[in-house]
């Protein structure tokens, strides 16, 4: 069963703009996949359909075989807890320190405080921020902030990691560091779907890619569309 499957998904916004046109693709469980395309191609819209932040106008989005559109509103939080989400604008809490940011998903899941602290520190350790757990996010570099976002996304042990332009504001070294962290999680079985406009990054990490152009899936060398 694919981790993510889009079947002829169209997304039209109330102002008439059509971000996706009957897009179909799949990401297999355990895969490290890219969603590529120029700015405005529909990558962010596609990623926002996965945790039901947006709803498709037509077509179906399946996450681990579950039709997202068929979920009751009360079930959506539980879908989101099964995902690790990295947002383009990071969405870090700047009035909380590094450790507290990572603790948030565990608090939401009802993890006991002591166990939550242990797991949050372990996640920070994996992304190399263990020594900065008391720092405020604003004092971190761009790369460190992105690694903090990764720690927050993975701390609740999701089976699918969805990242929207995680290297957009990073230099090539920091971007490579972030991608290496993704690869390490992928190697232990986490499905990773990364949206990026950086073709060089896709080439370097050599994973399968689904390319979007003006909301349509484009197939070609190095890309793959699957229904």
């Amino acid at each position, binding site marked *: 069963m694919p981790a993510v499957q889009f079947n002829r998904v169209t997304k039209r916004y109330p102002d008439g703009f059509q971000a996706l046109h009957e897009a179909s693709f799949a990401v297999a469980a355990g895969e490290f996949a890219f969603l590529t395309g120029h700015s405005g191609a529909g990558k962010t819209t596609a990623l926002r359909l996965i945790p039901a932040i947006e709803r498709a106008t037509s077509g179906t989005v399946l996450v681990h075989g579950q039709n997202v559109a068929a979920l009751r509103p009360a079930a959506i939080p539980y879908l989101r807890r099964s995902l690790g989400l990295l947002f383009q604008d990071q969405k870090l809490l700047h009035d909380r320190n590094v450790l507290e940011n990572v603790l948030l998903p565990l608090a*939401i899941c009802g993890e006991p405080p002591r166990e939550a602290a242990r797991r949050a520190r372990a996640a920070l350790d994996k992304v190399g921020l263990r020594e900065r757990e008391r720092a405020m996010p604003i004092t971190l570099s761009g790369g460190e902030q992105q690694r903090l976002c990764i720690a927050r996304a993975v701390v609740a042990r999701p089976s699918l990691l969805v990242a929207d332009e995680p290297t957009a504001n990073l230099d090539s070294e920091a971007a490579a560091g972030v991608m290496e962290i993704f690869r390490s999680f992928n190697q232990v079985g986490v499905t990773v779907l990364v949206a990026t406009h950086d073709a060089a990054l896709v080439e370097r990490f050599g994973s399968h890619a689904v390319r979007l152009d003006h909301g349509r899936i484009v197939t070609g060398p190095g890309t793959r569309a699957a229904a």
Partner: protein
Amino acid sequence: MRAWLRHHAQCLGATLRRLVRAPVASGLNVLAIGVAAALPLGGWVLLGNAQHLAGEAHVDPQLSVFLAREATRADAARVEAALAGAPGVRRHRFVPKEEALADLQRAEGLREILATLGSNPLPDALVADLAPGEPDAAQRLAAELRKLPNVAIVQFDALWLQRLDAALRLGAMAVGVLAALLGIGMVAVTFNTIRQQILTQQGEIEVSRLIGATDAFVRRPFLYQGAVTGLAGGLVALGIVAAALYALNGEVGRLSATYASDFRLALPPAADLAALLGFASALGWAGAYLSVSSHFHKSLR
């Protein structure tokens, strides 16, 4: 279940810490609610005291049936039977004319006047204590008794009773209206306080919802804040009213002493006060609930 309870405890702790961290803003909110709540609470307390005073002053209405001078014990027994079967009659007693005369003779200055009459001018009588608040039933009973043989006079001060009853009802209604207005005001104040709190925590709320927080999880800390604010406002109102009663009781004591009474204004029983504080807390909770629901309605799911 344990996680749920843990989150409740964390929310309560966070609410109390937030109140302590911003003492001026929190204090002013609580004071605004407390002062507003003090008005109907004070009215309610005064009304309760007035009802208590009326009870102490034997406000329970009495109905007196004076028999004709030629009336027999059988006539008195007939009236007694009518009183015994009537609804709203708490108790009744027969007052023989000899007892009435003896009572009168004990009154200062009347002994000499009665001595000049030669014979007992007083009739046998029956006195009934009626349940308060039922002037119509009392009037119907008086009309029935007047129809009995050898009943000379049935005395019942219906107008006085009706006026007292109406005044107490009016007071209760005024307090009710004031309390309803306060309730709306309290919900509005809490709504606004929580709305401001939501605005300062908008980022946290958005992130929490995006990573899987349920509406209940997001709502819970705000509900605690509303409930605690309402409870604190209720306590302030209670303090204001208690202080006002303390200040008034000196003069009330002097006034009641002139009526040979030791009456003092008092707070309602502890159970009533606890219910009142619970109600204030519930209003705060309701304001917070509406505020968070309004935010949810406007924001993404």
